[in-house]
């Protein structure tokens, strides 16, 4: 089963993603794939908070912040993975260059690697973020990133069995409502 969840910040995505993953998983094969690469105190505090929120759920943690394909040997084929988040993974891949270069091929790479990964695992729940509905003119960097994230989101949504958006804690299904 492949599930794609997106929406604005603090709308209930993570809790729903955790519940889906828990429900689909077989005993010890429940994984949290953390893609954020913590860089400062604020990041480390966020990681600690997320770990607390997952405590007692039975998640094992994999920390793969980039190059998902390099971990293909480590994938638990009976595993249910919660990928948190597509947003952070793309950011790591896109802005990893020296001298502030943007890696414009990153969206295609990330989409392919995530889809290959999802074919090897039993289940994957992808969590992304809706960064697309505000009234602002962005610099080229930010806009390439938004366009890239939309590309990855659309590629994942096309292949996922369930696609849902969260708004104010409410779920809006785009497909697969009957599958859970």
């Amino acid at each position, binding site marked *: 089963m492949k599930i*794609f969840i*997106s929406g*604005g910040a603090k709308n209930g995505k993570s809790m729903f993603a955790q519940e889906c993953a828990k429900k689909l998983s077989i005993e010890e094969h429940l994984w949290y794939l953390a893609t954020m690469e913590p860089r400062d105190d604020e990041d480390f505090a966020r990681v600690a908070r997320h770990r607390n929120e997952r405590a007692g759920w039975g998640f094992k943690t994999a920390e793969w912040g980039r190059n998902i394909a390099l971990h293909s040997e480590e994938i638990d084929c009976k595993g249910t993975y919660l990928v948190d988040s597509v947003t952070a993974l793309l950011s790591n891949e896109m802005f990893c260059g020296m001298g502030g270069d943007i890696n414009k091929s990153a969206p295609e790479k990330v989409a392919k690697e995530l889809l290959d990964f999802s074919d090897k695992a039993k289940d994957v729940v992808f969590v992304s973020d*809706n*960064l*697309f*509905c*505000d*009234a*602002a*003119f962005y610099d080229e960097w930010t806009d390439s990133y*938004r*366009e890239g994230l*939309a*590309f990855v*989101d*659309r590629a*994942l*949504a*096309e292949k996922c069995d369930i*696609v849902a*958006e969260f708004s104010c804690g409410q779920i*809006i299904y*785009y*497909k697969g409502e009957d599958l859970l």
Partner: protein
Amino acid sequence: MELIIGGAFQGKTAFAKENFNLTDDEIFICDKDSAPDFSKKCITHIERFSFWCVEHGFEPAEYLFEHAENIFDKIIISDDISCGVVPINKTERAWREANGRLLIKLSKESEHVTRIFCGLSQRLK
């Protein structure tokens, strides 16, 4: 009239092309720096037209209905710019509100309103 809305880069134009058999020649892409040409069947990035209106002192809904012929036969596409932080810039604040008023009017007049999310459609009306 058909109204298609959704966040930036979500696949709205692709949806319109597929569902209404449009070619690129039938699509007019609005520009925030110049007056629009409403002669084509499909008008996309209407939110940029709203910005142009705000900068030139027009109310987008009024201008559109006065200047576009056969408006009820058109397919209109807008980015959803209604979420996010209230813009600091006064013109951008006015723009967001003017586009909102335009979309309410278009939504009321449209036969169908479709929202696109990650390439998938949702019928709002």
